[in-house]
């Protein structure tokens, strides 16, 4: 059982390493979106500081959404998705490997880049650790939940827009708790409530998303 999981993870990491465009685009998108706000709203640090958590979180969410479309699409196009479906290993576990590989390639870099952008947005330094923790748990949940939408729309040509429409309502709770945890941290309030709830959302997604993704994949390859 474990063998297939790690092999698939290794294969996807190797593929991502060879095909840089897939994971560079969301990162560049994340940086550009965040830098747009000071240009659009003005350099006033006080104002930027107030909107920083929201901007960082919405940008991270949109970057994850952008990267999700490619999650199953390359496998679907060259037919290896069918091999995934026909493997004796449980599909939910294999799907977990795919989502983890996708997160390592897009979610993690977002995470590592966010402190830099937090400084750009004048965010209080005390809030940066909470930003990292909330983004860590948040992007994992977003990848899991988003993968359901990706699996549902993988068979469609113009699936991108539909994917956004399907998963955005499901992203909202993560966004609410995520950005409010950073806001609370910025103004020195306790953040454990938000982070616990984020953790709860993550565990829920970890348990419920893979079977839904597996079922959606079986339908999309019909």
């Amino acid at each position, binding site marked *: 059982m474990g063998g297939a999981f790690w092999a698939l993870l290794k294969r996807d990491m190797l593929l991502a390493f060879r095909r840089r465009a897939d994971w560079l685009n969301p990162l560049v998108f994340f940086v550009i979106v965040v830098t747009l706000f000071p240009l659009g709203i003005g350099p006033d640090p006080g104002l930027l500081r107030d909107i920083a958590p929201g901007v960082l979180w919405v940008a991270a969410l949109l970057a994850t959404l952008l990267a999700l479309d490619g999650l199953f699409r390359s496998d679907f196009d060259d037919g290896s998705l069918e091999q995934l479906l026909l493997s004796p290993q449980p599909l939910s576990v294999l799907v977990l490997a795919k989502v983890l590989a996708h997160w390592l390639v897009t979610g993690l870099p977002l995470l590592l880049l966010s402190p830099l952008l937090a400084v750009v947005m004048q965010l209080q330094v005390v809030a940066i650790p909470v930003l990292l923790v909330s983004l860590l748990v948040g992007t994992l949940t977003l990848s899991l939940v988003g993968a*359901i939408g990706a699996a*549902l*729309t993988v*068979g*469609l040509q*113009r*699936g991108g827009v*539909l994917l956004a*429409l*399907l998963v*955005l*309502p*499901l992203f*909202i*709770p993560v966004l*609410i*708790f995520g950005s*409010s945890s950073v806001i609370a941290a910025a103004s020195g309030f306790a953040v454990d409530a938000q982070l616990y*709830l984020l953790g709860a*959302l993550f565990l*829920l997604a970890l348990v*419920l998303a893979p079977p*839904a993704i597996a*079922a*959606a994949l079986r*339908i*999309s390859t*019909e």
Partner: protein
Amino acid sequence: MFQWFHRLAASKNFYRLAEILGPLFGVLGAILLTLGVYRGLFVAPTDYEQGESYRIIYVHVPSAWMSMFVYMVMAFCSALFLIWKMKLADIIAEVSAPMGAAFTFLALATGSLWGKPMWGTWWEWDARLTSELILLFLYIGYMALRASIDNRGSAARAAAILALVGVVNIPIIHYSVEWWNTLHQPASITKFDTPSIHISMLVPLLMMALGFTFFYFTNMLSRARSVILEREANNNWVKDRFRENRL
């Protein structure tokens, strides 16, 4: 052979049942709605706090209630369809989605009309209205997904999965929006709640709610019958009915 026959028999019997219940619900709905509107507008006393504007609840609350009820029906039918392959359940979910979206839109519109005198703005980020807005996105997503997959069998199953994922998320969304609302909104303004309901105000509200529900069922049954007619046009029971002009 059994499965095919079971499917056929199911839709024929369902058709006959819907033929009877449909008009019955229609009549009941019409009576309840006219009575409800009459009592709500003319008989129910003025609310001391909100004056006459509270009467909007007689359309807002039922449509908000229906928007949730219809989604629950869709989710339940989706589960029946996915687990027991009941094609009828999928037809019910398919025809209910547009109506659910219409009720959600209605709830949003009447909600903002009711909120205007109270808060002075057309759109108030109140927890209930925000959840309603997100529910509208769920409906649109459901209908968009079903429309974008051409093979009807997979479109139905994909939409069913989305409906189930959606129904799991509705309480989460509602709770997080409530939480978000209390966090950012000082609780001083009057909660967007129905005022303390005097019995004479409550009766029309229940009538309207029931009226809406019957209205939904009669339309859903009629649309389901139309879908069945189209899909089983080649079957004998449809041909016989066509000949005897009992469609």
